[in-house]
């Protein structure tokens, strides 16, 4: 408002006196002293102007027609806008009763005529000073109330967040021994979720040195990890799992240094973890199913191809012999026609089991290669070893004694087997080995079936 702060007016004063000459005198004096002066000649006008624009102080003549000073003062004190304006009475009357009444109606001081200018200024100035200090105090009280309100609201907000959060939230303060080493942490803030996780009430936790003991049972290294967060300032984000009587629980947590301590947020990820584990198990099962032959539960062609490639490379690297057996059920089409498809399936299952039983070293692989064709991969197996396994297979199938009335070679179900063995060359292909075995199988069939043929070329790599 004021363009020049150094010339700031001392304060605004309202003068009320029914004699204009008195007003003129005092108006001029006080204006010279630097006050903003407004003057009116009646109590009614004094009230109107004081409400319209409240002055800092009012100098009020007691003896006026219509409405005397006491009445004006009472009205001022009764009004919300004007009640705090200090009123100084001025009167020629100097008797005790008047002074008492002046104070009773709310006046703060009393000046008698005739007066010295210095006295008026001094009394006015002291009231204005009080008024200014009062206003300053009110301002400070208001600011303090506002601050308290903000503080209260932020506390309420914090507490509401802590109480309603689905995550566990806690704040811990380091408790150090004389050497400065962190011996434990004091719980400053613990929300209901954390309390529930730890199986305690918040009252049991807050303010107490219980963290070290509590985390010991969850993860023996966890306490040291928290100490590291405080000592290095590095945020720790990790997962932990621990068993409870209700089952395994998984948690994801973030610990952040906070003063000489840390704040930690914990989220229960048990259900997510359970889904992940179920998914993992399902994937593993799918992986198995994708590699299995549904009828015989042997490896299927997909798995066979992958294994053959792999074992070929490994044996080439290690310069080890790799043997391959192709087994074909003799006159199987006739068997199906004679006994039906169900019996045919059952026959294949029995033979599959017999072959698998004969080639059961960990590295051996038995697969269903085609309709009634089985393939056996024998890593690190020489021609002699392969011949032995083929013989074992023949014996096992023979022992199954599955009747086959339509076979030209036997009364029972029999196998023709072709064997090929090679020490693979790194540049070579497993196709050659397959081709060799197939030729041997063809030869076995040509020679009347129910026999094993081992190719002469097998010894070649």
């Amino acid at each position: 408002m004021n363009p020049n702060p150094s010339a700031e007016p001392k304060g605004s004063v309202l003068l009320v006196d029914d004699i204009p000459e008195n007003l003129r005198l005092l108006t001029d004096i006080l204006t010279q002293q630097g006050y903003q002066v407004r003057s009116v000649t009646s109590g009614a006008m004094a009230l109107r102007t004081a409400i319209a624009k409240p002055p800092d102080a009012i100098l009020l003549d007691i003896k006026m027609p219509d409405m005397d000073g006491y009445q004006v003062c009472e009205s001022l004190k009764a009004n919300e806008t004007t009640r705090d304006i200090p009123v100084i009475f001025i009167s020629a009357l100097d008797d005790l009763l008047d002074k008492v009444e002046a104070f009773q109606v709310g006046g703060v001081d009393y000046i008698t005529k005739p007066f010295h200018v210095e006295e008026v200024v001094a009394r006015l100035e002291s009231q204005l000073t009080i008024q200014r200090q009062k206003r300053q105090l009110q301002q400070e009280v208001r600011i303090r109330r506002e601050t308290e309100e903000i503080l209260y609201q932020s506390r309420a907000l914090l507490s509401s967040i802590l109480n309603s959060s689905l995550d566990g939230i806690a704040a811990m303060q380091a408790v150090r021994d004389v050497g400065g080493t962190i011996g434990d942490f004091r719980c400053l803030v613990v929300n209901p979720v954390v309390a529930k996780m730890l199986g305690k009430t918040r009252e049991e936790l807050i303010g107490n040195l219980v963290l070290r003991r509590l985390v010991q049972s969850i993860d023996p290294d966890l306490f040291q990890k928290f100490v590291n967060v405080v000592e290095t300032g590095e945020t720790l984000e990790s997962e932990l799992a621990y068993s409870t009587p209700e089952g395994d629980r998984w948690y994801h947590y973030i610990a952040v240094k906070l003063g000489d301590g840390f704040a930690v947020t914990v989220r229960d990820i048990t259900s997510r973890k359970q889904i992940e584990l179920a998914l993992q198990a399902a994937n593993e099962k799918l992986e198995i199913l994708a590699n299995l032959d549904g009828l015989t539960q042997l490896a299927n062609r997909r798995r066979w191809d992958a294994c053959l490639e792999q074992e070929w490379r490994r044996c080439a690297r290690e310069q080890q012999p790799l043997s391959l057996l192709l087994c074909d059920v003799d006159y199987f089409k006739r068997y199906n026609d004679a006994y039906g498809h169900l019996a045919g399936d059952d026959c294949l299952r029995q033979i599959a089991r017999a072959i698998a039983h004969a080639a059961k070293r960990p590295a051996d692989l038995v697969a269903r290669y085609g309709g009634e064709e089985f393939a056996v991969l024998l890593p690190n197996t020489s021609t002699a070893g392969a011949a032995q396994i083929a013989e074992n297979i023949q014996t096992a199938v023979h022992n199954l004694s599955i009747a086959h009335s339509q076979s030209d070679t036997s009364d029972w179900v029999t196998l023709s087997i072709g064997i090929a063995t090679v020490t693979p060359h790194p540049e070579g292909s497993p196709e050659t080995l397959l081709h060799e075995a197939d030729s041997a199988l063809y030869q076995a069939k040509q020679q009347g079936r129910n026999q094993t043929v081992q190719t002469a070329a097998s010894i070649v790599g």
Partner: protein
Amino acid sequence: MPDAWKAAFYNAALEADSAQVQGLIAEIATSHAALAQELSQWSHQFRFDKILEWVEALSVPAASVADISNISNISDIANISDVEQP
């Protein structure tokens, strides 16, 4: 008088602001010399109550019987330059 002047004049009188009141009277000193002199006298006498009354009468024509009587009274005063001091 323009409404803006009346509003400013009323407000200055209500706040018992002598300087403001004098300033506004000066604005009409040539156009309404007699009236300006009268108003100026009231201002020097700190009779802002009278000034308010006068503006109120101007602003609220025929609002009520009381106001009508007021107006005639005030316009009389305004038209006569040498009115006796109250």
